[in-house]
């Protein structure tokens, strides 16, 4: 149980770091546009032409 005397302060330090990182992320505008980035992972970015998917409708799938 004595290890808690070490772990609790460590957790406080981690929380502080977490808050500072969050503040940096907010200030640098990373939360300004939540719509685009949420979807961007779905898109192929640099492939010149996405491979056609045979037998699949091109949309609404």
């Amino acid at each position: 149980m004595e290890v808690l005397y070490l772990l609790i302060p460590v957790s406080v330090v981690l929380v502080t770091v977490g808050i500072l990182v969050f503040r940096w992320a907010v200030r640098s505008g990373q939360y300004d546009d939540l719509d685009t980035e949420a979807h961007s992972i779905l898109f192929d970015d640099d492939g010149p032409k996405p491979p056609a998917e045979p037998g699949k409708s091109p949309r609404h799938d």
Partner: protein
Amino acid sequence: MSTDYICDHCGARSNGQPITQDFDGQSRQFCCQGCQTVAGIIHAGGLDAFYRFRDQPLNRPDTLSAAERDSYALYRDPAIQSQLSHAGERPGSLEIELLIRGITCAACTWLIEQHLKRLPGIEEVWVNGTTHRAMVQWDPETCTLADILLRLRELGYEALPYSPAEAEKHLSETRRTQLFRMGLAGIGAMQNMMLAVPTYFSLKPGEDFFELLRWLGFLITIPVLLYSARPFFDNAFRDIRTRQLTMDVPVALALSLAFGASTWILINGGTHTYFDSVCMFTFFILVSKSIEQSIQHRAVVTLNESAHQAPAFVECLTGELKWKAAAQLQPGDKIRIPAGAAVPADGRALNASQIDEAMMTGEFMPRDVQPGDEVLAGSLVCHTALELEVCRSPDDSQMAVLEHLASRAQSSKSRLVRMADRIASLFVARILLLIAVVGGFWIWYDASRAFEVVLAMLVITCPCALSLSIPAAQSAGLSALRRAGVLVTRPDALEVLPRVRVTAFDKTGTLTLGRFQRTGVRVSPDITEEEALKIAAAMERFSTHPIARAFGDIQLESSLVQGVEVVPARGVSALHEGHIYRIGTPEFALDSTGALPTTENHSLTASQLEVVLGRDGRWLATFTLQDSLRPEAAEVVARLQEHDQMQCALLTGDNSQAARQIGQALGLSPVLTGLSPEEKVNQLQALGKTHGPVMMVGDGLNDAPVMAAADVSVAMNEASDLAKVSADVLLLTPSLMGVIRLTSVARKIRRIARQNIGWAIGYNLVALPFAASGWVTPWIAALGMSVSSLVVVLNASRLARTQE
């Protein structure tokens, strides 16, 4: 043939014959030439993934006409390019911020980025899908601003150079602060709960870790209270000074009492602290506030997009530059603004003219200005070109416009929230009085327990749940509507909506598509119907007039006609197989010898019109065109009538048989046709007097005054900017179904707000006697306070999940 189909590009439902085209063996159907062209560009660029990922329909793109292409020529000028942009990161490159109209979902931003990046000379593109702004960095040696704007235009997006005003920077700064406040409270709440669990269940006061955990909780609560909850205290002090009891007062009171009592217990010893409750409550309130704020932010962005139409260049009357970018104007510059354009900066008129200030004041009648009169940025010049001496730089002027729009959208508190304020303040005043009385009794009866009992009562009656009840329901409802493509710009409308008894519709563009469709063809014996249609379609393909779209569904080989000439307001002429063909008005298509056959002299209804095709001045064919009803109109009217028990009326300026037919077909009553804008307002007010609150659904410029007069106004997706700016609700998708969604969600919001208030007050009334009699231990009280808030939030979140 009239079967319904959905356009594969814009997603609109139409009836008639679609244009079809094969892409890699897959047949696609389109509603118009514009959609087909854009889809072709997207397909050629290998960007078909766009269609898979988009989740909102698009606006219907217009075909780019030669005249419109020419209007971009100014953007090729190096001097103008450098005036509008600033130096990019790489030496020699330029960077510009653009406002892009037509973005409907995240897939649009991807499409724009991908399509632009393939233009040689583009170095960096970044599109923000929330604010609809794009940052573009390019090499002026390789391409010009005109290329960039045209490349966006060919995809159907209209881009305007934009320099963000101070007010907007301020707005986004506020959002960021708010977000950080919420995040901090969230982290604090989680940490505190983790620290509190052992003290709830396993540890007893006096044990080793007990005090340590409590002190840590205290430490973590301090930043949450001082930073995250700061606005509540500021507002509460302000309201107390102005002698108003708003919801912020009990919130601040609850927070400071819970924190003060916990600190007292921490120092003097006691069984229970409430630091976790303080953080959690702050977090819940901030979450609902921030949902509301992000929706209001969207409303401001949309309104600003509609409002931003200042011409990028202004003709200068003084100085060495003839054309100056509007953003570069300085006080003292003398400029000329042509009729129909918006005034770019506040100034003093130098000549007499007429301006429309509806955007600023809501007054739609044009105002006469005399030399020396003040003119506000954002007004439209109506008649004669206005000469103006600039008084304030456009940045300051634009700020004023933005602030105006923002204040409209964020009109501090909606009526619903004010109602909650009233209930809470009445309730809180009484509870406090009661607690004082009960406290007095306990001091007399058993002074050792008095503090514990008073504290339990304060915690259990904390108005947290009550103060969350309405904001939570409202913000959940607003975001559900937003996802369904309905943007509420004035939350007050939500309170009025469930009481609305009459819905008045405009006709053209609201109940009808505002697009012409062919309903009949008559041909001379010299030509077959099919051939006449093909020639007509081949010619109309070169025109951007709405009539031309009526021929957009006809398949044809590319170069059927040559030597095409488009004559504005009259028609199109072209060469085909050695003959001159003309299509358009009878006077245009036919010469004096080629009069219409006598059978052609019959009357038409006003929503119909005829287009005549002539060969070498002789009559060949007549096409009858008609605007068609929206496919969903009948369903929407029926559901409003049955489900909402509303009366549905038609208010239209159209005085034709067709208007009355539409009214009859849809079962509208009363059907009022041939109304001037003033008569529309009068009729609307008369309806309001006899039946109750009125909702107006409209789109046109003429609808702005009648929309302002209605209790709730809804503007269609394709509405004029003016109508959008004056509307309470914007439908972001080109469908009337949004109206149904709006009324049903508004009703649900009211129901859930009532349930929440009932729950919060009921819980307090039940728990209070137990607390007063000393049966409730403080930890049960704290649990009750948290759970009651949680119930309210979860109940409201049912709204966000509603799908129909």
